[in-house]
């Protein structure tokens, strides 16, 4: 049994345990989930320390680490050839940060699940299945397997939002599901198209191996997605069309601006732990997919559309920030700030420079931690008084000093104060976008300049919120009752908040902890895309 398989299937085993145990044990389920995420975290740290940073991976199969490859489905389809689907796992510099992030976020989300009081058996089994799916997505190197894990995330999320969510949960859950499914159904067609175009040189079969799909030499001459053949579907170049379809599928997750409307609804209706997972991990699956699949398999189309992707990133940054300014609900504000911050990821990716890609990766990890922290903090207030309207609170700093301390860390880190991870990440993304004009001419400078305006806006909405909610005289809508309910941070909450705050500081001061491990991969990716 390979380490990655343990990492992926440990939660499923725990989920089975939760299902089998009688409901009288239901108060213990959270400890099972907590134990699982702790073990995963230790395992991922172990993998991190053993990770060989010299091997880039990306498009060379034997440079991946912890590879596990088993034949899975071999159906002979006659004229189409033999179906070659593998159980194929492996990691490189692009996936290792996400493994650690997943374990950490799952840990925090479990701690925040203490607030869930009903139907614990169902909750924790769904939660653990979700854990498996997310881990699987970051490790899978076979496109079919990737897709299965990718889709497996939807069902648990649908029920987690739908069953434990707020008042409009039905609407939010189905909207989320339909949006994502819309993207992924068409992704399936591209996967099949790729499968027909690519041959495994070793066996002569068609294959779903992502790494083989990255090598133009493996494409059958004249096949749909062969770069040489230049085929077109319904008047558009087939490769460009496939790229756009895949990009939209992942961009819905990221989310990019015209396709982001599921996100505020899902976040507002979801219970706190699910918001944490959504913001901390699910959005990253989108970014990871764009890097691992869109840009790696269709580098030519990626270069072709880089300008548009950069523009979408810029629009997301500004539009998200402006929307955040206008929100009156604290959770909605943070949801929109996610849209804005994920825009930097797109901008960094679109620049296709080493700085830009490193910045985008760092931004994903940094935002993963920070958004989890922000949602956790909102959840704390909401749990105590069941309200999160910004205007209903004033002077919280006096009432909850420790809470305010954590809020300030999270706010300042998010708005890009030097010393915190988001600063490094946004700075690198911007440098990437800025130099892109000279290095490869993909993005014009004004995009970088426009994006820096986004940092200004995020300072505005975070500081304004801080001022409105935390400073000044204590004035609460609920009066004395609220005052008694708003107790300061408990020990359990500190366990969740401290690691996240540490992550933001650590990556802000020593970003090389991450850059070191992924640099070889980022260089290889840039080389793969720009040739």
């Amino acid at each position, binding site marked *: 049994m390979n380490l990655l398989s343990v990492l992926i299937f440990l939660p499923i085993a725990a989920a089975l345990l939760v299902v089998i145990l009688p409901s009288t044990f239901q108060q213990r389920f959270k400890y099972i989930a907590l134990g699982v995420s702790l073990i995963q975290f230790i395992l991922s740290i172990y993998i991190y320390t053993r990770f060989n940073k010299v091997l880039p991976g990306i498009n060379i199969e034997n440079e991946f680490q912890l590879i596990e490859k088993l034949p899975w489905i071999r159906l002979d389809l006659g004229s*189409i050839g033999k179906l070659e689907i593998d159980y194929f796992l492996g990691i490189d510099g692009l996936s290792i940060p996400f493994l650690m992030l997943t374990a950490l976020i799952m840990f925090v989300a479990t701690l925040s699940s203490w607030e869930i009081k009903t139907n614990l058996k169902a909750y924790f089994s769904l939660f653990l299945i979700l854990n498996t799916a997310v881990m699987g997505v970051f490790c899978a190197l076979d496109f079919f397997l990737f897709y299965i894990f990718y889709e497996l995330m939807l069902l648990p999320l649908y029920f987690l939002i739908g069953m434990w969510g707020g008042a409009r949960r039905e609407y939010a859950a189905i909207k989320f599901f*339909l949006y994502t499914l819309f993207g992924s159904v*068409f992704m399936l067609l591209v996967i099949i198209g790729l499968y027909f175009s690519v041959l495994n040189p070793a066996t002569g079969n068609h294959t779903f191996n992502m790494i083989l799909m990255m090598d133009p030499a493996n494409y059958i001459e004249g096949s749909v997605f062969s770069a040489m053949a230049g085929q077109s579907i319904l008047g558009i170049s087939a490769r460009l069309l496939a790229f756009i379809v895949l990009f939209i599928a992942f961009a819905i997750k990221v989310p990019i601006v015209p396709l982001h409307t599921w996100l505020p609804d899902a976040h507002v209706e979801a219970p706190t732990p699910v918001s944490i997972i959504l913001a901390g991990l699910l959005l990253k699956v989108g970014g990871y997919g764009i890097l691992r699949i869109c840009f790696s398999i269709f580098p030519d189309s990626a270069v072709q559309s880089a300008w548009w992707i950069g523009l979408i990133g810029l629009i997301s940054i500004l539009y998200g920030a402006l929307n955040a300014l206008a929100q009156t609900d604290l959770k909605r504000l943070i949801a929109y700030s996610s849209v804005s911050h994920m825009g930097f990821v797109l901008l960094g990716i679109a620049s296709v420079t080493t700085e830009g890609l490193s910045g985008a990766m760092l931004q994903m990890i940094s935002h993963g931690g920070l958004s989890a922290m922000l949602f956790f903090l909102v959840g704390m207030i909401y749990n105590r008084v069941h309200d999160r309207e910004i205007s209903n609170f004033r002077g919280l700093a006096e009432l909850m000093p420790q809470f305010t301390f954590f809020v300030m860390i999270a706010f300042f880190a998010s708005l890009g104060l030097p010393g915190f991870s988001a600063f490094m990440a946004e700075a690198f993304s911007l440098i990437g976008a800025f130099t892109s004009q000279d290095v490869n001419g993909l993005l014009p400078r004004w995009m970088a300049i426009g994006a820096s305006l986004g940092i200004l806006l995020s300072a505005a909405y975070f500081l304004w919120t801080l001022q409105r909610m935390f400073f000044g005289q204590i004035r609460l809508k609920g009066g004395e009752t609220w005052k008694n309910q708003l107790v300061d941070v408990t020990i359990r909450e500190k366990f969740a908040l401290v690691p996240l705050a540490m992550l933001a500081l650590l990556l802000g001061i020593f970003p090389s902890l991450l850059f070191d491990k992924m640099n070889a991969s980022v260089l290889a990716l840039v080389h793969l895309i720009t040739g």
Partner: protein
Amino acid sequence: MNDLIPYISSSIRDSLASLNFFRAEISLVMGFLVVILSDLFFSKRYPQLSFILTLSTLVLVAYQSSGFLKMVSTPLFGGMIIMDHLAILFKLLFCLASILFVLFIRFNRAFQNHDKGFGDMYSILLAVHLGLNLMAMSANLLMVYLSLEMVSLGSYLMVGYLSAGQRQTEAAMKYALFGAVCSAIMLYGISLLYGFTGTLYLNDPAFLSGLHNIPRMASALALILVFIGIAFKLSLVPLHFWSPDVYEGAPTPVTAFLSTAPKIAGFAVLIKFLEIFYDPESKALSSSILDLNFVLAFLAILSMLLGNFVAIWQNNVKRMLAYSSIGHTGFMLMGLFIFSASGFKAIIFYMTVYVIMNMAAFLIVDEIEEKTGKQYINEYKGLGKKNSLLMISLLIVLVSLTGLPPTVGFTAKFLVFSTALEAYNLSGLPILMIMIITASLSTIVSLFYYFKVPLNAFLRETSGPVQISTRSPKVYMGVFLAFLLLLLIIFPALLEHII
């Protein structure tokens, strides 16, 4: 007359030799007789005898059929029927559907409590099963017609068997009338075909050449008439009107059976017809008489669109499943564009999974209706809280029907998509691309209506939710089938290795 005498001995020899391959069907006939007799004489003393006899007959038939699994294509009885790998696969599929059906009837309360008892139902089933087997093997137009009629007559009886209430009678009547008209049309088409070509054998080269010698309009008309008969069995879109009413009105086990076995047999016959127009060079269908690719794709698109979109507005669960099965039929048509014996693996895989999930869906819906009287989706509110095992099984089945991981419905859907895309690759016909895109969109639409069930069952609350006892054979069966759907995605080799 005298000219034929020299042939008699050889034809007798041929028939006798064929009997050897005909064991499964002989068992069916024997089983049919034994079940009738046992029901007549022993039904009072051993009420379960006919059930056990039917079940063992079906198991025996499955065993006997599987013995010929690896055989090469062999014409039997002077070419009236052809037994090949594909036909055996179809026969095994029918066995699966029939066995599930028999168990389903056995534990259905409406059948248990009915005065008539269920002995006759079993004998009807065995007769229908014989018809299904013959449909899958027939290579002669008369044989096609005879077997099709055999299945249809049995199906009419099944629908009206309980004659409980007006709705059921109406369904049976509608089915019989519609079916009779369609088969008359088909018979007319067959007679035209015979007149044009002078042969009834589908694989006779004279058949195709004869068709080409006739003016295009005339031969196209004859073919269309025959296709109407088949499309009726498949409930493809222009001829689907009967199916929602019949599915809703018929006893639930019968609905489950009708939406699987005869439909699959319809596909078997359709494949037989399409085989004539298969062009081995381009690996695709081609015909100068009728643009078959266009017609098939068009029907598929229509069925997927109508089946899935109309299902959204259904509130009755059975009716929703009926419309969704129209959509599934359209989807299955997509697997017919690639033509080669092994190319049908995708569609056989899909059909197997379809039988399992459709049967499971009706089983669970029937169980809920029996125990709580709830037939409408909005009545399912809060059911999931108390009956988690049953409702989770239903959820798995519905997820599989939608075609999402982690259920084998996804693998099946994936395989059919693969063959359709490959067909597009080979031919480059835009209509195929449109069909594939329609299929993708209808998947999203189907999510919308399938998920109304878990939406009500899990997300909505109701005061005083009903608890259904899990100690019921139908619950066990439903759970088992749902588990199978999960198991098969991890180990598809279990199925692969038969196909």
